[in-house]
């Protein structure tokens, strides 16, 4: 249980900068997910917390102690590796007891504790097994038990679920979440899978090109992304190019590539000038098809949607229909541009390719980004 502070962390490999200006306070007992595409520096950041990489500059402190110059073996952090890194020549029990052995615990004591850790991850009967004979999910559990056995200040998870198949990964996500709630320890979990991050995290830190772009609660980063990269990374959306044509005290009028003028309501005096280029993001869940909402929306949203002042709509032709199990995705051509919309119920109100459909949304739900990708609050 500990609070970790990263301050201006930077890591360079020769000429390449892997991590740059990463500063974040990881709260005591929280589960923070570092989320980003591969090569975004999330694993390097995690390895610096573990002490497996030395930062080029910046500091890391656990509680109030500056641990930047401490080697991995002196830090009370514990890592679950992507390929689990179990010791192949030791039994499962000896693997789990290893950290305790290094801490000088007697054989009886450490084996007793290792056994209870194995019970905790439902691997009780496997103590004498050879780890190389275990399945991926079992290795994952043993690696978790091994890391938890030393009672670390912080548990670091370096994409430990990415080598598991989808079903098992989802089960393990729930289990990890439960273990975290149970232990109330600080977890830092690295993943490139946004679903995994949303399932697990108390807070999500999104990394791109070595920088920590935004840290926040899952709903905050999803609904209030700082830039276009995050909006694109956290799920599918329609980006529509637009130019501001007119501003008034409570709305911004834009001309779009869809060929229609859209009205974006604002709370205060608009912060954009006429002629400014914008990219609008229209997530499929804000689009309703022929008046029906595409996805089940939270109750609060409905009230806003009926507010006529911010109402926007376009009409287009269905180009193709993709059946995706729980949803049906329509690719819609609107004046030569393409957008997609989704509906959850596959059986009712189905459309076929060639049908004309009308997409409607509430202008309040549209996010706008400037040309350099930063968020524009209208």
């Amino acid at each position, binding site marked *: 249980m500990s609070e970790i502070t990263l301050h201006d962390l930077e890591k360079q490999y020769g000429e390449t900068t892997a991590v740059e200006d990463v500063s974040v306070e990881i709260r005591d007992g929280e589960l923070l997910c570092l989320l980003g595409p591969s090569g975004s520096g999330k694993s390097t950041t995690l390895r610096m917390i*573990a*002490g*497996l990489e030395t930062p080029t500059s910046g500091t890391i402190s656990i509680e109030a102690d500056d641990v930047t110059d401490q*080697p*991995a*073996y002196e830090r009370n*952090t*514990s*890592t679950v*590796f992507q*390929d689990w*890194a*179990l*010791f*192949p*020549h*030791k*039994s499962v029990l*000896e693997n789990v007891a*290893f*950290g305790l052995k*290094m*801490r000088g615990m007697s*054989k009886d004591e450490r084996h007793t504790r290792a056994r209870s850790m194995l019970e905790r991850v439902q691997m009780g009967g496997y103590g004498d097994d050879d780890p190389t004979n275990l399945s991926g999910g079992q290795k994952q559990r043993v690696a978790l038990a*091994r*890391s938890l056995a*030393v009672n670390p200040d912080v548990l670091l998870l370096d994409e430990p679920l990415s080598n598991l198949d989808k079903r098992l990964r989802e089960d393990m996500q729930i289990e990890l979440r439960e273990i975290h709630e149970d232990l109330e320890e600080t977890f830092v979990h690295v993943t490139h899978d946004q679903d995994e991050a949303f399932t697990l995290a108390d807070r999500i830190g999104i990394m791109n090109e070595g920088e920590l772009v935004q840290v926040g609660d899952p709903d905050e980063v999803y609904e209030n992304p700082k830039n276009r990269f995050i909006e694109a990374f956290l799920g599918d959306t329609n980006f529509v190019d637009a130019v501001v044509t007119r501003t008034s005290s409570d709305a911004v009028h834009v001309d779009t590539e869809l060929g229609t003028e859209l009205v974006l309501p604002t709370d205060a005096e608009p912060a954009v000038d006429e002629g400014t280029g914008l990219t609008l993001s229209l997530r499929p869940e804000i689009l309703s098809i022929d008046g029906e909402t595409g996805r089940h929306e939270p109750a609060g949203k409905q009230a806003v949607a009926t507010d006529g002042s911010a109402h926007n709509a376009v009409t287009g032709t269905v180009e193709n229909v993709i059946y995706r199990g729980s949803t049906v995705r329509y690719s819609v051509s609107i004046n030569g541009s393409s957008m997609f919309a989704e509906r959850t119920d596959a059986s009712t109100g189905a459309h076929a390719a060639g049908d004309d459909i009308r997409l409607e949304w509430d202008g309040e739900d549209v996010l706008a980004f400037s040309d350099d990708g930063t968020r524009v609050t209208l």
Partner: protein
Amino acid sequence: MTTTNTHDPSSLDRIRDAVVGQSNSRRALLLMAPLIAFELLVFVIPFFILLRISVASGSADLPYEPGTWSLDAYSSVIENILSFDLFWSILVYSFVLGGAVTIVTVGIALFYAYAIWRSNGLVKSLLLFSVILPLLTTLVIRTYAFTPLLSPTGTVNDILLSLNLLSEPIQFVPGTVGAGIGQLYIVLPYAVLAIYSVMATIDWDIVEAARDLGASRPRSVVEVVVPQVMPGVIVATVISFAWSVGSYAAPGLLSDNYTFAIYIERLLLTDQRYPTAAAFSVIMLVLMLISTGALFAILNRFGGDFDLA
């Protein structure tokens, strides 16, 4: 189910499997034939000739008396050994030299292999190349090369004297130290390659995992690298030990001492006592087999989890 069907496919399959299986084993036998012939010709048959000579009786004017049967050679060698006579001292000298060379060789080879494993790019290529390089020079030349280095007027003594670390030169060559160093230089490349080939397959991740769990740098190597590299260490140890106990070139060129191999040569070529030489060889072979087996048993204990304390 048509269990009464006479054309039961499963029994047909069994027959087919048996035929195919047999042709497979025949093919395997055929593939191994040259190797088997080679082994028979250069190892098995000569070894039986050696065994046969060891149980022949000696002769006044021939190396041995063909067609005779006698255990005299064995009884004289064993008696000599048990009375701590010449054979005993040669045997002890060979095993002590071999043991010492093996321990130092495997120790250096472990460090050297680790250095190759952990290095990258040019350094790795250079380290690997410098292991192979000595093998490109003939053994006699590279062994003799220690004479100008290690003799009382050699380079090493010159340096030690000029640094005032010595008051008078030490005679490494000719001597046991020189022979040991020469022998070490002969077997080291093989030991390094044997260990490195296994080490290269180890995942660095597990060393990181050990350090992450609190193992210091040396401890992490002892706990997770050494046990995994043990097969390579065993091979390196057996190569070094067998070769060094039976060493011939290095002690022959760099010392005046008798190792067992040098003494066998003398028995054969100078004394012309074939049965004695053969009997001594067989006894040494048995001792080597026993000690190699013991080495395996001891080193295998370090393959798993073990307590340093």
